[in-house]
């Protein structure tokens, strides 16, 4: 996953060899950048993605408030109702084999799904970047041990690891988060370590050491803020990966169990009805896809704005860009 490391905006100078880069930089250095939200608006796909996430957030916070009952209310009369208004507004996206309306289920499921993905990624981020900083800055035997640990984790098919741990710990939401976090940790660990190894050689780190700054000081004040943007882009990609992993686990029947609702579970349950009621799997599948796609698009946007070699593409408007 190290490929996702963008050329970070802290690179000492512009990519070497861009002929005019040094001069250009000298003249551009004092320029103001566009605020991030204007850069966002310049990227239509990223804007749409953010809008989608805003909608999701509304789902997450409003859905359970009003609709938890509706999401579990069995109504066999509306069994497998197709999308439309025939069974009332809540059934606009159709209903499942128990006649439970998909829209509220999707909204209630959004909370579990996003919470699992979000917490897993955050746990992996915290754990991985912490270990990665130690491995990168301290190195030595401890660093080596940490790297071997990462080797082991990454050579263990993550789905299997998840399966085993879930059998040990029961498929509870917290445990699922734990498992997914463990399987993602090594990415953060490696990326952080690689970044730390590079950043610790920078002159400002030397300057801080010359001032008497100890390892904790340097890691906190100098290295962490610089690793952050890189990790940020990975977090968004990973968010997508974790959602897909969660749904794959549900597909295999070992993830979250009913009566909890997650999107992956909805797809897994709906797949039995593909021939009769395609919407059961399609609607949550599309929700997963839209969300992972949005996360990926945002990540790609983040990579661009964090990369001085690419950022200008968003900063210049399209018309002006034409030679």
């Amino acid at each position, binding site marked *: 996953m190290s490929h996702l490391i963008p050329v970070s905006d802290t690179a000492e100078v512009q990519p*070497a*060899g*861009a*002929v*005019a880069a*040094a*001069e*250009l930089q*000298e*003249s*551009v250095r*004092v*320029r*103001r*950048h*566009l605020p991030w939200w204007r850069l966002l608006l310049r990227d239509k796909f990223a804007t749409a993605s953010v809008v989608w996430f805003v909608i999701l957030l509304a789902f997450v916070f409003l859905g359970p408030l009003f609709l938890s009952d509706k999401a579990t209310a069995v109504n066999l009369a509306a069994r497998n109702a197709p999308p439309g208004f025939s069974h009332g507004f809540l059934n606009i996206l159709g209903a499942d084999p128990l006649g439970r309306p998909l829209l509220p289920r999707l909204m209630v499921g959004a909370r579990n799904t996003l919470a699992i993905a979000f917490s897993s990624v955050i746990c992996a981020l915290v754990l991985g970047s912490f270990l990665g900083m130690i491995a990168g800055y301290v190195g030595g035997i401890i660093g080596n041990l940490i790297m071997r640990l990462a080797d082991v984790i990454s050579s263990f098919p993550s789905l299997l690891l998840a399966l085993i741990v879930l059998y040990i710990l029961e498929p509870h939401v917290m445990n699922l988060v734990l498992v997914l976090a463990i399987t993602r940790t090594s990415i953060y660990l490696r990326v952080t370590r690689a970044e730390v190894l590079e950043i610790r050689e920078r002159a400002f780190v030397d300057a801080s050491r010359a001032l008497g700054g100890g390892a904790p000081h340097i890691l906190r004040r100098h290295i962490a803020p610089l690793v952050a943007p890189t990790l940020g882009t990975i977090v968004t990609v990973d968010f997508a990966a974790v959602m897909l992993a969660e749904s794959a686990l549900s597909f295999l029947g070992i993830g979250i169990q009913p009566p909890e609702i997650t999107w992956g579970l909805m797809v897994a349950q709906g797949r039995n009805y593909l021939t009769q009621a395609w919407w059961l799997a399609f609607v949550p599948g599309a929700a997963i896809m839209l969300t992972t796609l949005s996360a990926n698009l945002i990540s790609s946007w983040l990579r661009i704005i964090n990369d001085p070699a690419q950022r*200008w593409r968003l*900063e*210049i408007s399209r018309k*002006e*860009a*034409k*030679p």
Partner: protein
Amino acid sequence: MTEPLLTVRDLKVEFQTGLETVHAVNGASLTVEAGEIVAVLGESGSGKSVTAAAIMRILPIPPARIAGGEIIFQGRNILTLSPSEWKQMLARDVALVLQDALSALNPVYPVGWQIAEVFRVHGERSRKVANAKAVELLKRVGIPDPERRAKEYPHQFSGGMRQRVMIAMAVALRPRLLIADEPTTALDVTVQADIMDMITQISWEEGMSVLLVTHDLGVALRYAQRVCVMYAGRVVEAGPVREVLSRPAHPYTLALLQSAPQARAEGERLNPISGSPPDLAHLPPGCPFHPRCRYAADVCRASRPAETNILPGRRVECHRAMEVLDVVAA
């Protein structure tokens, strides 16, 4: 008088960055005659490298944009040539040596291969012949044991040796014009001297013109015949190098000389140029140098000085050039 080999006339290059347009080159004009070495002297942001890149047509477009002017090389306007016509001229007629030879050489191919590629791309069918020519060139640029070193990779060469490889590659097809963009900036003085001596020698032997882009007054003085001093994207003063540097007519040239420790006697305090380099997105009206100029008058703030020929072969853009000349003389 015959037409110069290269004429850059009123060249304008803009970069679109963020909210603003940076006028990196702002109406630069210069000429290079056949067989001469012309130094383009300037600090960062003066537009000297952008001019070189524009001549080579390797500006990143976008964000860069050629906003005006023409570049006449051997009687043809480079800017209007089709890409394939231009590719034909590259390396054959005009070549470039970049500052950072390590990143300018492809790290995964042997240097001999990379030199031979020039011949192969420009019509040499036999791999063997191309390789032999490459070894010959390495020998010519003073690389010992060329047969063996041709098979080595760029990272196995020292900085000076890499720059020699770059020069070998550039002069492979005996171009009429060599553009050398800060060819020795990262190198030690002893190596710099070797490299510059070699370029000068090849130029003399081949009758090859050299456009030497540099920020080093000493290098310009030692190796060039003529100098163009650039400031804020314009050539503010041009002329024979010894004359310009001993009797500058532009206050900027003068100020540069006064801030150079090389030019000062021991114990003499340096006399830096006040203020900061020009903001290329918001150039001041009038003469772009006037905010930092000791000789600035109202006219300098009001209008941009026209190009004037103050002495034979000397060109300057300053309202008060004559006064400056007098001051220097005094």
